[in-house]
Each structure stands twice: as structure tokens, then as C-alpha cells.
């Protein structure tokens, strides 16, 4: 803990709670000073997007009827106040969540945050990524429009080529009676099941997030990669000297973390609100009435429409366009298993000793191969919907991996690594108890903080006033209301950043 002077009312309250519930140490960890930079909070962004999805999902589910999915979707969009806005929010929120998840995963790959003892955390994280993609896949089918339903059923069919009887398992779960009582004619009863699965998988995500966070609180945040020498521990608890003497490592009051969490949540919510209101998802507004632009599913038109999956599945779609389905299944499963086993591959095959990217040349080369081919595959498949690619696609992927190893590996191993090691040698890990003087930098002067706060307050009051006025006619104004709500959330998060996270301009 920091000294008593610095603790405000909130910290004393938290300490009071701690004495009764024991929240410090294993439930909430105060973070060191260096961790107050956005790349240490990317997981929080994903979590915020997930919370956002749960809230908006529960709200749009109120009007969803799985026995007649398309009609209930258009009803929600065209008739229900804020229905179109919520639909747009939920769909964009899913995109944002998948995107942030990829960013979070990439960052943790770059800084080696999966290294021992965090292997299980990475595995739980990849399971979470799989569950999130499953959730997105199930949700994509639910509006039952022409493209999404054909893409969903085609996607299911690819399991018939999977080894280990995965196809049988999927068939057990997805083959339903087409004459199931209570389903509208012309509607596949499978969509009813998918709706239920959409909830179940959401619950599983919550469960695994709990596990993920539990492991996170156990290990704490990673030490900065530049400070961990080969062979040294990668837990912040092992660096008590640093924490005591280096102001950059000084443990901050919990209030700052709470501020950061609230700020991140508001920022994510605000961004989703803003995107979803400026670009309504598959919705046109015609004479004030929002209208769903995707046509309803019908089997005859389905035969002439390329069923393109959503952007995060394009890389799998690419494999199935490129090679025979059995080989594509093997590539797909191989991709998944290498991702899951990545920490163990690094630990036992590459045997890297420190988390700094320059000290993990083989891992970085392999992972970069994955990232580059993910991007290349997605773009390529997105440009050629329904067209044949041919084996050249997979060959290009192979070349990408080979190139990554022939360029990145020697660069890191022979150019970057000696410099990083020399730099690490030049500073002592422990400083013999000498307390380094920490200059309290001011990022913003007091005057600027005052001005910013006044501006933010004015903006907040103005946009909330506009929301109040506009809400007289929710159907027509819902997207403008969404913009103002998003704007006010972003403003609010900035004000928290200024006043709580950086303590009125101090760093």
C-alpha cells in the first residue's frame, strides 16, 4: 500500500471492505504506475464490449421471436422506439468486441504475456476467443436474412469434413425436425435452437471471463518487457525492490484503477454508440422510418447469392475456397491447436528465456506469420466472393510463413537481440535501496484542466439536454440521440481521465 497521506476517502472505504472481505491480493490488485497506459487495459476494452453486448442483447431479445425471426427483426427495426438503434448497437458492438479481442490477443502475443506461469491464462483466453467467434457466428444467423442464413448453414456443413467425428457431434446438435410444432412455415426451426445457443454461449463466455480474471488477479500485471532479463521471473510480485524504490513501479491507489476501468467502459460504450449511430448497421432511414435493408431468406434466391461470412470468418472461408474441404478442415484445426498450444511451443520447442520480443525471435516470426496471413486471407477472400482462388492461396500463406522466418528471425536474433541484451546489462535490476527521486510531471497545467472541465461539463449538459428534447420522437430521432449519448459518454470518460486517472493533470 502507499502511504496514508495519499489515500482518499475511497481508499479508506476499500480498506474497510478489505478487512471484512479480503479484496486486496486476490480480488482486486492495485496496479503499478507504469501500467497506466492503454496497452495494459486492452482486456478491459474487450470486457466492456462484452458487457455492452449483454445489455443490448437482452434488450433486443425482448422483441425477438425465433419462430418468425425475420419479421420480428424488421418489426423491431421499423416499429419499436429505439429498436433500430439497439439493433445497430448490438451488431456494431459485436464487431467492436471481435476487433478489440484480436488487438488484445496481438498485444499479449507481442509482449509475451502468455509465458510461464501464464500459460493457462492464454489457453483460457483462446477458448474465450473461440467462444466469442461462436457467439458471433450464432448471432449472425439470427436476423434470418438471405445472406446470413445461407452463410450459416453452409458454415455448418463444413463440419462434415472434420476428423474425430466432429461432424456427428454438430449434427446431433443441429439437425432438427423441419415440421417442429410452433415454427412458422418457411422458417428453419434450427434458428430457434441457435437463439438458445446464443444465450448459452454467452453464459459460457461469462464463466470463462471469470476464470480469466481470476488468473489475472493471481499473477498481476506483467513487468515491462524491457526490464525482464533472460531467466528472471515474470511476476511483478518478485520485484519488491523495484516496487519500493522505482517510482515507475510504485503501486498506485486503487482509486486510479477504478477510474481507469470506468473510463475504459465509458469510452468503449461511447465509441460503439457513436459508430452505430453514424453508420446504422444494415439499416436505411427513409422518411424518418428506419428500414432493414437485407432481404428475407428464401431458398430460390439463396442459390444465386454468394453467402459471404462476416469479416472475422473470411480467413476460414479463404481456406475452404482454396483447397479441398478435408485439407481446409485440417488447416483450420491446425490453426486452432497451434494458437492454443503457443505458450508450450515457445517453452519447449523454441526455448526462449525472456518476454522481450527481440529475445523471442522464433515465436515472433511464427506469430507474425499468423497475423500477416490472417490479414492477407481476409482481404483476399473479401475481394473474391463466390470465386475460386485455387491452391495458390494456401501457397501464398506458406510463403508468408517462410518469409517471416527468413526476415524477422535473423533480424531479431542477430540485430535486435545483442542491443537489447547490452541495454539490459547496463542497468542494475536492484538499485541497492537507493530511492530514485521521482519528479511529479505535470501533463496539463491547472488552468487547462479547469477550462477542459468546464468545456466537458457544458458539452455533457448540452448533449443530455438534446437527448431529452429529441426523445419526444424516438423513432425518427433515435440515431441522433445515439450520437449525442455516445458523445456524452466519450466526454464523461475524458473527464474521468483528467480528474481521476491522471489526477488533475499530474502523470
Amino acid at each position, binding site marked *: 500500500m502507499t502511504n496514508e497521506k495519499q489515500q482518499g476517502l475511497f481508499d479508506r472505504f476499500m480498506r474497510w471492505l478489505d478487512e471484512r472481505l479480503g479484496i486486496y491480493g486476490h480480488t482486486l490488485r492495485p496496479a503499478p504506475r507504469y501500467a497506466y497506459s492503454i496497452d495494459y487495459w486492452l482486456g478491459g476494452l474487450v470486457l466492456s464490449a462484452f458487457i455492452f453486448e449483454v445489455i443490448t442483447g437482452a434488450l433486443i431479445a425482448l422483441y425477438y421471436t425465433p419462430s418468425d425471426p425475420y419479421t420480428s427483426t424488421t418489426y423491431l427495426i421499423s416499429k419499436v422506439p429505439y429498436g433500430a438503434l439497439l439493433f445497430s448497437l448490438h451488431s456494431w458492438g459485436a464487431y467492436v468486441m471481435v476487433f478489440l479481442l484480436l488487438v488484445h490477443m496481438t498485444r499479449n502475443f507481442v509482449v509475451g504475456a502468455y509465458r510461464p506461469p501464464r500459460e493457462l491464462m492464454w489457453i483460457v483466453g483462446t477458448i474465450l476467443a473461440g467462444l466469442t467467434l461462436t457467439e458471433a457466428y450464432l448471432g449472425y444467423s439470427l436476423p434470418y436474412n438471405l445472406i446470413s442464413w445461407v452463410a450459416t448453414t453452409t458454415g455448418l456443413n463444413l463440419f462434415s469434413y472434420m476428423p474425430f467425428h466432429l461432424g456427428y457431434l454438430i449434427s446431433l446438435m443441429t*439437425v432438427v425436425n423441419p415440421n417442429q410444432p410452433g415454427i412458422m412455415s418457411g422458417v428453419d426451426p434450427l434458428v430457434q435452437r441457435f437463439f438458445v445457443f446464443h444465450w448459452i454461449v454467452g453464459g459460457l463466455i461469462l464463466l470463462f471471463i471469470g476464470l480469466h480474471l481470476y488468473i489475472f488477479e493471481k499473477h498481476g500485471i506483467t513487468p515491462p518487457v524491457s526490464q525482464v532479463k533472460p531467466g528472471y521471473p515474470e511476476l511483478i510480485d518478485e520485484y519488491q525492490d523495484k516496487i519500493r524504490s522505482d517510482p515507475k513501479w510504485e503501486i498506485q491507489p486503487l482509486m486510479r484503477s477504478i477510474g481507469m476501468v470506468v473510463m475504459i467502459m465509458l469510452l468503449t460504450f461511447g465509441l460503439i454508440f457513436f459508430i452505430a449511430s453514424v453508420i446504422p448497421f444494415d439499416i436505411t432511414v427513409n422518411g424518418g422510418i428506419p428500414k432493414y435493408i437485407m432481404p428475407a431468406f428464401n431458398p430460390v434466391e439463396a442459390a444465386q*447469392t454468394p453467402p459471404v461470412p462476416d469479416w472475422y470468418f473470411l480467413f476460414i472461408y479463404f481456406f*475452404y475456397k482454396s483447397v479441398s474441404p478435408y485439407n481446409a478442415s485440417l488447416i483450420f484445426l491446425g490453426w486452432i491447436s497451434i494458437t492454443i498450444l503457443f505458450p508450450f511451443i515457445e517453452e519447449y520447442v523454441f526455448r526462449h528465456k525472456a518476454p522481450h520480443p527481440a529475445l523471442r525471435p522464433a515465436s515472433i516470426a511464427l506469430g507474425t506469420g499468423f497475423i500477416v496471413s490472417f490479414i492477407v486471407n481476409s482481404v483476399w477472400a473479401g475481394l473474391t466472393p463466390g470465386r475460386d482462388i485455387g491452391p495458390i492461396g494456401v501457397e501464398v500463406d506458406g510463403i508468408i510463413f517462410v518469409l517471416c522466418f527468413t526476415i524477422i528471425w535473423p533480424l531479431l536474433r542477430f540485430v535486435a537481440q545483442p542491443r537489447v541484451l547490452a541495454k539490459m546489462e547496463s542497468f542494475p535490476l536492484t538499485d541497492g535501496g537507493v530511492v530514485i527521486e521521482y519528479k511529479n510531471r505535470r501533463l496539463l497545467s491547472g488552468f487547462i484542466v479547469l477550462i477542459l472541465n468546464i468545456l466537458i461539463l457544458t458539452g455533457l449538459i448540452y448533449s443530455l439536454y438534446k437527448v431529452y428534447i429529441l426523445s419526444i420522437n424516438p423513432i425518427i430521432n433515435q440515431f441522433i440521440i445515439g450520437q449525442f449519448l455516445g458523445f456524452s459518454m466519450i466526454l464523461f470518460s475524458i473527464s474521468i481521465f483528467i480528474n481521476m486517472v491522471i489526477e488533475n493533470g499530474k502523470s
Partner: protein
Amino acid sequence: MRLYLVVSAAIAIAPLVKPLADYVGYFYNELGTISKKYLVVNNNDGLAGFPKYKIVNIKDFQQQVQSTGCPVYFFAYPLTNEPCFLVDLEALLGKPVPQIENPYYGQFAGPLGSIKVIKGVGPNNSIYGFSDVCVHLGCQLPAQVLVTSPNDPGLDIEDSILHCPCHGSMYLLEKGGIVVGGPAPRPLPMVILEYDESTGDIYAVGTNAPYFSASIPRTTPTDNLLYDPRYDYSTPSNPSCSKGG
């Protein structure tokens, strides 16, 4: 001790797996018994053999080709949710195609597997039957969309290449539906036709290979007689040709 606990817990949970699979997969397990009622015509052989099904009289088909210029005729065979189509390759390509080598020759047991050459039916020996479902991932093929380039989804009128809209599989119909592009793992199944010269009726009597099926692994032609609810394909009504771009 702890290991014993884990093992005994696993043993205790194991009997739950089958009831759960039975419950969730109720309909899947029923498929074998309910398949019969989905056969298109009176099926006296049950699941043991293909039914003989009258598709269309040659006069009606020829009249459709002449009046609308549409050389494709849709029907469902052997099940009511499995679309197939007749195609008059001479009318499509403007050159005679009297016979096609069976790409599946010798791969399946029984009389249908030993057909080496599939002869066209009709007065010009130019009519052939194909499945309308892509064997890659089960998309319905747009055989009624007549296109001028094999790169567009639809049936190409110059080379008789049928292009699937999903993943770009291309089947060359005049060579028996062999794969000339895309990821399809095997040729497009053909429907074996019979032609009654006295009446002009065209019959379907079987297929040279199993169709695509996601839920039931079909490995022999008789497996075709299992009903697959995964896709309720609908058969386009005739004539249904359109121009694609």
C-alpha cells in the same frame, strides 16, 4: 486419493452423456425411420434401391427449349427436397454430346457403379441429369442462371461449366460434371436416366454417386435414400432460366 476422486467423478458423469445426446439429437436419430415418406414416387423397394420416377415427357421438354430457349428442366429425385436438373447439352452448346464417360466408374458396387459410359437420352441423345446440390459444402447450384463467362456463378453457355456461388467450384457438365476449378472434392453426381422411345417419357432410375449430405455420411448410392433435413432445398419451377451477369 485425489486422482481416484477425479476418476470416479468422471465415471459418475459418463452415463449422462448418452441421455444428453439422445435428448439433443432426438430428430437426428429418427432420420432412418422417417426417410421413406419423403421419396418422390411409389417406392416399393424401400431403402434398398432407387425408385423409378417419371420426370417429364420429351415433348414438353422440347417445347420448353424451343419456346423459352431454356435447356434446363428441374425435378426432385430421389427425395422431394433434393433438386436435380435435366440439361439438353446439344441445345446449350450447339454441338452433339451423345455420351459421357462416367467419372465414378467402378467406384461403387452394384449395377449403377459398373456403368462405364452414360448415354444421353432423347431423340438426339443429348439430355443428361445432374444433381443441383454442390458436393463441396452443399450450396444449391444456380443451373437456371445462364451466363457467358465461367467466372460468374451460373451455367456457362459456351463451355457448359456450372459455377457454384459459394466457394467457386466449377463443374464441366459435358465431361460428366468433373471438377475444373474450385475446391470441390469430387465430380457432380449424375442422375441415370431412362428413355421410353414409344411414349417419349424420361425416367430417373438412380444416381452414379451419392449427393452431398452434411448430417448423414453418404458413401453408397443407396444412402441417397436417407432424408436430410439440414437443407430443405426447394426445386425451382419450370421454366426458370434467367440471364446472369
